[in-house]
């Protein structure tokens, strides 16, 4: 065996383990969302999450991967490992959507949207940057996908949420927002920890090569920065809500950690760990502000996905101009604008098409009873007398 062959094996394994960690994020999104919706819609959000991951995998296999990378010619590690690693990213983008449209979106329409997003919409913009297209030529830097994955997912979600409207009872007649607490805080926390763990694969794997001391050093720094940003994001959100309202709102803290993760994703290999802490801290504060702002504007996003992945994805993209010598603010802005416009517009058209054909919103009585019974035939916790028909 030559050293190159062994390095090939090692790099393949590194990528496969990273991909397995990202695959695990599908469970993270499932648990987070299952914890943040009401129990009457929990089974249905689980169905959506399992199926979106399944559809993404097949659609990207059959169409998306080729659309994004042409016929990629990976030489230093197994081609299939590359496919697998890229595939779990598209699933992540779609997972972001499910949370934002939760508790009112028709299952069939959601699955069709998932099919098109993962087969076409996501890969098209992915080809512009990671596929070697015009954005990469413009010098747009997005290491692991603050924009390409997270903001893209949030853009698709935003288009859906705008067409769907808020959940019944979310806003009083005078327009003031009402709280609709999620049913299961331990699940939401578990989901966040799963995402946090999976993110080491998400960012750590995006170096794409482990062999060589430079690569190893870079990956180690990526791990440290990823963790630092998440930790500071959680703290930033905590400090803000604790000062503002005394209460330590767990869901905001969880969103803060995720916001830090999203923000650092655009470039986790450049800043020092202390800078990563600052980036995370900022994200934790921004995400709370953004959630409050959108909520007041009538944008009903049960899990805060648009703020976490969209707003903090953009924030992360822009910061790269500061942390990385290879990037400049102009191309970062351009890249962000290009990704957002494309994904948002294409998604809007697709949602609109679904709206006039199949419909995208469950009817009022289904929404009151909960989609678990109407669409799935079984409630998430069928033994508990819950307040589901309130």
């Amino acid at each position, binding site marked *: 065996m030559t050293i190159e062959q062994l390095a090939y094996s090692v790099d393949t394994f590194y990528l496969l383990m990273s991909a397995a960690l990202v695959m695990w994020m599908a469970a993270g999104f499932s648990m987070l969302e299952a914890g943040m919706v009401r129990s009457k819609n929990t089974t249905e959000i689980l169905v959506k999450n399992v199926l979106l991951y399944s559809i993404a995998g097949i659609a990207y296999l059959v169409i998306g991967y080729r659309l994004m990378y042409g016929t990629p010619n990976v030489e230093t590690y197994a081609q299939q490992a590359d496919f697998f690693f890229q595939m779990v990213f598209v699933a992540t983008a779609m997972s972001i959507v499910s949370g934002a449209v939760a508790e009112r979106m028709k299952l069939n329409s959601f699955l069709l949207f998932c099919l098109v997003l993962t087969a076409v919409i996501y890969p098209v913009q992915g080809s512009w940057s990671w596929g070697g297209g015009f954005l990469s030529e413009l010098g747009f830097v997005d290491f692991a996908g603050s924009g390409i994955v997270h903001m893209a997912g949030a853009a698709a979600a935003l288009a859906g949420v705008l067409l769907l409207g808020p959940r019944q009872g979310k806003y009083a007649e005078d327009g003031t927002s009402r709280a609709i607490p999620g049913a299961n805080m331990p699940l939401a926390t578990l989901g966040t920890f799963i995402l946090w763990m999976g993110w080491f694969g998400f960012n750590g794997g995006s170096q794409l090569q482990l062999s060589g001391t430079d690569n190893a050093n870079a990956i180690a720094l990526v791990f440290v920065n990823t963790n630092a940003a998440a930790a500071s994001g959680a703290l930033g959100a905590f400090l803000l809500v604790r000062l503002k309202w005394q209460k330590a709102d767990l869901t905001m803290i969880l969103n803060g950690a995720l916001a830090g993760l999203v923000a650092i994703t655009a470039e986790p290999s450049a800043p020092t760990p202390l800078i990563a802490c600052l980036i995370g801290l900022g994200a934790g504060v921004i995400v709370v502000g953004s959630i409050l702002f959108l909520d007041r504007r009538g944008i009903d996003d049960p899990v805060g996905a648009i703020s976490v992945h969209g707003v903090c994805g953009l924030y992360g993209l822009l910061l790269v101009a500061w942390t990385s010598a290879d990037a400049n603010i102009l191309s970062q802005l351009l890249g962000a604008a290009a990704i957002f416009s494309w994904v948002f517009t294409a998604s809007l058209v697709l949602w609109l098409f679904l709206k006039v054909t199949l419909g995208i919103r469950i009817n009022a009585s289904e929404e*009151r*009873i909960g989609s678990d*019974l109407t669409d799935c*035939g*079984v409630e998430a916790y069928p033994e508990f*007398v819950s*307040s*589901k*028909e*309130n």
Partner: protein
Amino acid sequence: MKLIIAIIKPAKLPEVRDALQAAGCKGMTITEVKGFGQQKSHDELYRGAPHHAEFLLKTRLDIAVQSEDADRIVSAIENAARTGNTGDGKVFVLSLEHAVRIRTGETNESAI
């Protein structure tokens, strides 16, 4: 005084509560109950087997009222809770002998 017991569909609780408040009713106690009656639970399928939930989720309200208000309040509940489908529920009225407000020790009319 009367004690009104109303068994209603859970989804109608907001309307009934509003109607009760409009009718001047200041307090009530609600319980989550399960009912059995003419309304049959529609079978769900779980793993292909019928999942016949015989008992249906209902909401019970207990409301203590002045005797002279009873009829009015019963009507208010009826109107707010009616959908016209089986399972709308029942209202029962019992005679209430005595009532106490624990906080103040006030009794009867002034307690409810």
